[in-house]
């Protein structure tokens, strides 16, 4: 008897699992068949087809702050791109262009914005400039805990409102539902680029105190936006389900549904191959595997990030940078270390064909980037490096094969690189130190946990005299926040009066006005200066990578990112 029941139980389990397996494989086989048919008919008709479900994966769990005013991570932003909308957009030269809002200004101080009529929120409300005013006030509120006050502070009276000294922001004047005038505290070249242009639906947020907004359902699980898709369901930390928003202002989207889900990056290739994933950004290290898939396009598009090796030239005194570290003040030493690096070889080995060497602290795709022919090239030349070191007095006096400093003391390049789970980081950092050792500079590498890296840099940790760093620049080209002598993020602590002057002039209305060429010219001069002074050695710039299943059509990329998803469509 007993034995029988045991067998029965085991059999039941088998049946159960078989049932589970069957119900899934049946479903999947079904969709696959459909796809096959789809490709056939799709090839004949190239007109966008309506319908279909797009599966898009996120490589880490979103924080779930689905409102531009509150979000903090790029993953959340990826989700929001589908269901919300910026009032202005940036073209492939990263110039601001009218989108929902257009503007007029004569002096770059007072801007008259006009928004399109009939733009609908997902809840059926019509967009009014009051929604924008509402968002600006939320961001300027004293209880606001997000990091965006920077983008509002330049509006006249915003600081007073933030400090609770005023009831209204004086610089914002609502004319009617479609017109608003925004006055900045002073004229700047980049007032518009830095302005907060994401409205918030004021009826949805009615009655919610600013300090409670970030944790409200309106932000976290039931966000309402203006974008081509509306959120149906949010499963926190796992997935977001969206469906087409028929009243999208820029034309009804083709795709019926969008599913965004979190998938561990290690599963990306397998999921892509099985057609269970249509679109995802991926790490360049797997580009060969992704390109090898017959059903997927591995897309590379220009990015706006660059990597550099910085020298600790000084310290941060709490307000500004002070150049007080003597070790790397010798320009010839820095030049020699630049000549010693074979950037071509290094980039090829560690960036998987999606990077290239860069010669300036501005990505090539940025409109202010100087032409390579205007800049010193610093091509790989170990002999020249050795010669420069000899000239500077770095010679091997004790015969151990490594150079000592001009005073005859041991010289060690203390180099550090950030560490994540990415295994290539350590080897690529090691490779750099080997280039320096090849010209006789003893080097020591420290790998530091990525979370602490910049914090330790800020505090001028001793192991970080030479360090690897990277920046991703936004649409505003101004390098002031990164390289001015008053910038905290200027990690090499580079202090140079000419640089500050050039950077100031380039955003000074009285110097450049609205003349883009004039502005670019100043930036080119600044880049020349930078490459002459070499406070940091620009190493490489990286392209962005994205995998798109071949059945997804109409997706285009440029420097500003993807095009709007309403024009995408799926071959069926």
């Amino acid at each position, binding site marked *: 008897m*007993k*034995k029988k029941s*045991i067998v029965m*139980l*085991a059999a039941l*389990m088998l049946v159960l*699992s078989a049932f*589970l*397996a069957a*119900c*899934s*494989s049946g479903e*999947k086989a079904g969709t696959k068949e459909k796809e096959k048919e789809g490709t056939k008919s799709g090839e004949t008709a190239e007109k966008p087809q309506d319908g279909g479900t797009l599966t898009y994966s996120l490589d*880490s*769990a979103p*924080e*779930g*702050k689905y409102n531009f005013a*509150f979000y903090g991570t790029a993953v959340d932003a990826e989700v929001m791109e589908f269901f919300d909308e910026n009032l202005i957009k940036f073209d492939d030269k990263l110039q601001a262009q009218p989108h929902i809002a257009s503007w007029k200004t004569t002096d770059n101080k007072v801007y008259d914005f006009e928004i399109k009529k009939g733009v609908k929120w997902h809840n059926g409300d019509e967009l009014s400039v009051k929604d924008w005013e509402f968002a600006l006030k939320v961001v300027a509120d004293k209880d606001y*805990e997000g*990091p*965006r006050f*920077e*983008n509002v502070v330049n509006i006249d009276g915003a600081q007073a409102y933030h400090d609770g000294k005023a009831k209204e922001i004086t610089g914002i004047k609502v004319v009617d539902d479609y017109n608003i005038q925004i006055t900045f505290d002073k004229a700047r070249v980049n007032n518009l680029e830095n302005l907060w242009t994401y409205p918030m639906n004021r009826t949805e947020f009615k009655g919610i105190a600013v300090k409670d907004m*970030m*944790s409200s359902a309106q932000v*976290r699980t039931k966000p309402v936006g203006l974008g081509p898709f509306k959120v149906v*369901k949010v*499963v*926190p*930390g*796992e*997935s977001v*389900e969206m469906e087409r928003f028929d009243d999208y202002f820029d034309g009804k989207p083709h795709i019926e*549904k969008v*599913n965004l*889900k*979190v*998938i*561990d990056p*290690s*599963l990306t290739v*397998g*999921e892509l191959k*099985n057609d269970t994933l249509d679109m995802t950004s991926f790490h360049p290290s797997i580009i060969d595997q992704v390109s090898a898939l017959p059903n997927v396009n591995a897309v590379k598009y220009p990015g706006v990030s660059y990597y550099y090796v910085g020298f600790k030239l000084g310290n941060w005194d709490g307000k500004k940078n002070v150049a007080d570290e003597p070790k790397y003040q010798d320009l010839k030493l820095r030049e020699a270390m630049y000549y010693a690096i074979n950037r071509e070889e290094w980039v090829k080995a560690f960036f998987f064909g999606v990077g290239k060497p860069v010669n300036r602290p501005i990505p090539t795709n940025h409109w202010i980037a100087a032409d390579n022919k205007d800049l010193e090239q610093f091509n790989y030349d170990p002999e020249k490096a050795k010669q420069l070191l000899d000239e500077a007095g770095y010679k091997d006096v004790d015969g151990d094969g490594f150079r000592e400093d001009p005073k005859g003391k041991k010289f060690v390049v203390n180099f550090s690189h950030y560490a994540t789970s990415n295994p290539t980081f350590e080897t690529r950092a090691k490779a750099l130190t080997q280039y320096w050792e090849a010209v006789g500079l003893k080097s020591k590498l420290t790998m530091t*946990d*990525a*979370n*602490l890296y*910049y*914090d*330790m840099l800020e505090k001028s940790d001793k192991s970080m005299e030479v360090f690897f760093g990277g*920046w991703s*620049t936004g649409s*505003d080209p101004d390098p002031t*926040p*990164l390289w001015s002598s008053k*910038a*905290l*993020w200027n990690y090499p602590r580079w202090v140079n009066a000419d640089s500050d002057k050039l950077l100031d002039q380039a955003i000074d209305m009285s110097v450049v006005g609205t003349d883009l060429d004039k502005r670019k010219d100043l930036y080119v001069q600044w880049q020349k200066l930078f490459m002459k002074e070499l406070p940091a050695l620009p190493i490489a710039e990286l392209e962005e990578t994205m995998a798109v299943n071949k059945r997804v059509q109409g997706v285009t990329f440029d420097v500003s990112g993807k095009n709007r998803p309403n024009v995408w469509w799926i071959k069926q």
Partner: protein
Amino acid sequence: MLKYAFRRLLGMIPMLLLTSIVVFTLAKLMPGDSLTGEIDPRNTNPKYIQEMRDKLGYNDPMPKQYFRWISNFSEGEFGKSTRFKIPVSEVIGERLPNTLLLGFASILITYMLAFFMGLYSGRKPYTLGDNLIGGLNYIGLSVPAFIAGVFAIFLFSFKLDWFPSNGSVAIGLTDGTFEWWMSRLHHVFLPAVVLGLLATASYTQFLRNDIIENSRKDYVRTARAKGTPEKKIYNVHILRNSIIPLITFLGFDIVAIISGAIITETIFTYPGLGQLFLQSVSTRDYPVLMTLTMMFSFLTLVGNLIADILYGVVDPRIRLD
């Protein structure tokens, strides 16, 4: 019995207090804080980071921070997650059902497999079947979860397409419907098996060895001499004795259920407490991190207590008072 349990429960209080000190100190010893990662020169003003540090109280002296935390904690006020900006209890509440499902499924699979395999092996030791099971068990014991997980995904998700490789439920289903539950079970099966692999292997071996050992004991010989059928000897006499160690594991398994499986959940992108714990460590989300650690410690103590009480229940000889 009751008195014993009560005494043990009281004894937990100082233990938990000490644990809290250790947890807090270790958490704060981690270099950096929740704001160190937030570097975005375009949007983030250094002043903002300073302000936030003040607001979150990171600049207060350590003892003051500790007492603020522990007094709030004991009132059930776990604080706000610095990453999600919602109360910790809500964050944990979102993940807890997933973890519970995974844990129970895993334990169910473990116990069922271990029970049948152990019973068979113990009864027919040194046969082909036993050796086969033994071989499988040693593979199960020696293959770490992260390898097993990756292989399971490769084989059952990518090659055979039987199970999904990630997530806890398919998108587009209504909560609570039959399809929704089936989808959840479907999603949880593979991680649950992987998670239970190690435990299955060791429990099977425990059970097998215990049965063999018992079958050589005097009372078994007596039963045989009396002419009791073999089946009855094994299923009644021996099983009762051999199941004791297995039952006591149940107490410890409670912790395993809740604490989730850090590695398994990460590999299967399964949003449970294990994954949350790992993410909280890397983002220095102290409130979530400390609450989870405290919860795990508390459950470990409770699990121990349950194990001890169960001992007494199944084996009257070691009943404590």
